[in-house]
């Protein structure tokens, strides 16, 4: 039996309301005990976590790893290595792979490939509709059986509200969570930036915040009608936060996440025509960003995701509207979260919870906590360690980040996945 002792660290585990100096005891792939030393525990390996924080491994609700189908952009191997270095132990994979995750075979292939080549756990999200075309229901039950944790629309439109209603009813019948990215395709009008002063100044096709809030409001109505449990992905606007707050107060079973870059950047930060800032939903106004931070702090928004979308160079090489949207974001997730804590936008406990306890609750899985008996998925990080986003430190195959060249505080030193070290900074340096 492999026994690991992580000692002298500040153990932060929001799910168990824990924040104190102490040790974590691991036996094989499970957490054996936290703080309290089990009788006769003799470790095979000891990690000294002095001046470091020890918390559950992070769970990322929205990633694209580009496999299968787009391995020129990234692979399971490259991206799970990046995730491991970022303290992420579990990742949900959006269904817009090539082919789309709309059949058991694709979901199984992904789980199989990810297990063979990857470092951490991949949880596929099944397509809500066949080929994500928004017309016909996918085989949701088969997808669930094949290991999909939820069904979703990725960024694709649903043909009409009747299709969405039926898909939600069907998902609810099988107790499947819908992960929905609200966006009215028509109002979005092929835009690439937020509709406001920036889009006006630079003559760029724009997306009004109403494209999101209208789709959100429609889905909230259908959530009540169908009883489907809905998680809204990557909210970007102030009015979405207001609507969601009302819905939660009213008692709907809904939750939401926000992409980490939305909590740091606005349209004012966009370097004109720099495609690294091309993301969907677009970077919005200062008041939107402030409301998203506030929503996270007051619990209206439950969790933070990376919305990781690695790209090859060509995808970002062109005139802004013609480039592909998305940020390679796994490795900046923790330092950007810590920056929110430094800025006093959220507390450290809230930030850790948004990356561990909350996403686990949303997916209804036994992860995201240091509860004895749970898988030993653990992230150890040094909150003061500085590092620069550069080609030496970066592991993702996608270098498409607006934060390139910046120096951040907060470096993961060890990541354990089911009791195994999948990242050890002290060795890799």
């Amino acid at each position, binding site marked *: 039996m492999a026994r690991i002792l992580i000692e002298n660290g500040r153990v932060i585990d929001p799910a168990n309301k824990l924040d104190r100096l102490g040790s974590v005891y691991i036996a094989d792939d499970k957490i054996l005990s936290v703080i309290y030393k089990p009788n006769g525990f003799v470790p095979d390996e000891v990690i000294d976590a002095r001046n470091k924080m020890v918390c559950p491994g992070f769970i990322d609700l929205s990633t694209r790893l580009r496999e299968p189908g787009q391995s020129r952009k990234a692979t399971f191997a490259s991206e799970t290595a990046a995730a491991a270095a970022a303290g992420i132990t579990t990742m949900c994979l959006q269904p817009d792979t090539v082919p789309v995750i709309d059949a058991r075979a694709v979901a199984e292939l992904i789980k199989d490939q990810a297990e063979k080549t990857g470092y951490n756990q991949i949880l596929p999200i099944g397509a809500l509709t066949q080929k994500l075309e928004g017309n016909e229901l996918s085989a949701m039950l088969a997808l669930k059986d094949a290991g999909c944790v939820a069904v979703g629309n990725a960024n694709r439109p649903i043909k009409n509200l009747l299709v969405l209603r039926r898909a939600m009813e069907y998902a609810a019948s099988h107790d499947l969570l819908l992960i929905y990215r609200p966006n009215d395709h028509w109002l979005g009008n092929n835009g690439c930036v937020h*509709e*406001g*002063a920036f*889009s*006006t*100044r*630079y*003559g*760029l*096709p*724009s997306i*009004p915040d109403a494209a999101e809030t209208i789709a959100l409001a429609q889905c909230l109505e259908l959530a009540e009608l169908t009883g489907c449990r809905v998680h809204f992905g990557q909210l970007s606007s102030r009015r979405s936060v207001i609507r969601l707050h009302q819905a939660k107060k009213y008692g709907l079973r809904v939750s939401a996440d926000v992409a980490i870059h939305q909590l740091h950047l606005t349209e004012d930060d966009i*370097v*004109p*025509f*720099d495609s690294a800032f091309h993301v969907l939903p677009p970077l919005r106004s200062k008041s939107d960003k402030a409301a998203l931070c506030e929503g996270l702090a007051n619990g209206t928004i439950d969790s933070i995701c990376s919305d990781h979308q690695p790209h090859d160079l*060509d995808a970002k*090489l*062109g*005139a*802004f*509207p*013609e480039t592909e949207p998305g940020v390679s974001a796994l490795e900046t997730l923790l330092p950007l979260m810590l920056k929110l804590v430094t800025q006093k936008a959220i507390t450290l406990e809230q930030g850790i919870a948004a990356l561990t306890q909350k996403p686990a609750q949303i997916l209804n899985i036994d992860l995201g906590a240091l509860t004895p008996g749970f898988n030993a998925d653990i992230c150890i990080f040094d909150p003061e360690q500085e590092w620069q986003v550069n080609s030496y430190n970066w592991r993702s195959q996608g270098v498409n980040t607006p934060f390139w060249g910046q120096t951040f505080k907060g470096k993961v030193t060890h990541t354990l996945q089911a009791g195994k070290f999948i990242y050890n900074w002290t060795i890799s340096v």
Partner: protein
Amino acid sequence: MGENLQLNSEGKLKHFLTIEGLSKPLLIEILDLAESFVNTTDQRIKKIPLLRGKSIVNLFFEDSTRTRSTFELAAKRLSADVLSLSIATSSTSKGESLLDTIRNLEAMYVDMFVVRHGISGAAHFIAQHTAPHVSVINAGDGQHAHPTQAMLDMFTIRQVKKDFSSLRVAVVGDILHSRVARSNIQALNTLGVAEVRVIAPKTLLPAQVESMGVTVSHSLAEGLQDIDVIIMLRLQKERMTSALLPSESEYFKCFGLTEERLKIAKPDAIVMHPGPINRGVEIDSKVADGPQSVILKQVSNGVAVRMAIMAMAMQQQGAS
């Protein structure tokens, strides 16, 4: 990047991509130099040897008659060698990227690209990726900027009105889709006019247009009061099919510039249009061809202004 991209370390023009970020003295310098060229172009021998031995490529990814021919003439009158390419769809349909097209032409030792492209930001992109000795002049990118048009409009306004500071200028029509409008608004504000007023239905105005330093009117009759300069914009046919407007005739009824309406503006107001004109849609023929119209003057000035801009951008090449 953005606005600084077009200036060299000494603050001189290297590329000409947008009016944004350019100073008033620099705009005045362009206008003054253009004025000296006007005399040249009036003469029988029109050529001056400023750009002798330089190669300029006109790269037009979008159709254009006026802009392309004035750029071509401007380059020739500066004694440069000019190659004009219409790449409307040809190379992109072959799968060649914008960057590949540029790199290939660069390999032929080109000194300057004059670029028109249907996507906002295309000229910036080319300027960022082209070799350091190559200048890029934006001849219109998507809905973003058309800075040489703006400069020739400023030149024409100055010719007639002399002083910018007291002027009230109306820009009428499809502001939302217009790169001419954006560049003109920026140029007018940089040169310090008293007011820029945009006049259009809400469907043709971009969000928070006031942030560009304009006042807004949704009625031509109201909006033309006290106006010294009227810049009419071309209305594209596809605006009707994309539910932005009900019909051409209704548009003309509300926003078409007629002799009647022109009387609302100041008696000495001038009428401008970047062309090509849709007679009977945004402007009545009687106004377009009338005494207050300076539309053809704009076209003639286009050559001199483009000569000035090309000469200034190229000068920096020689210096660096």
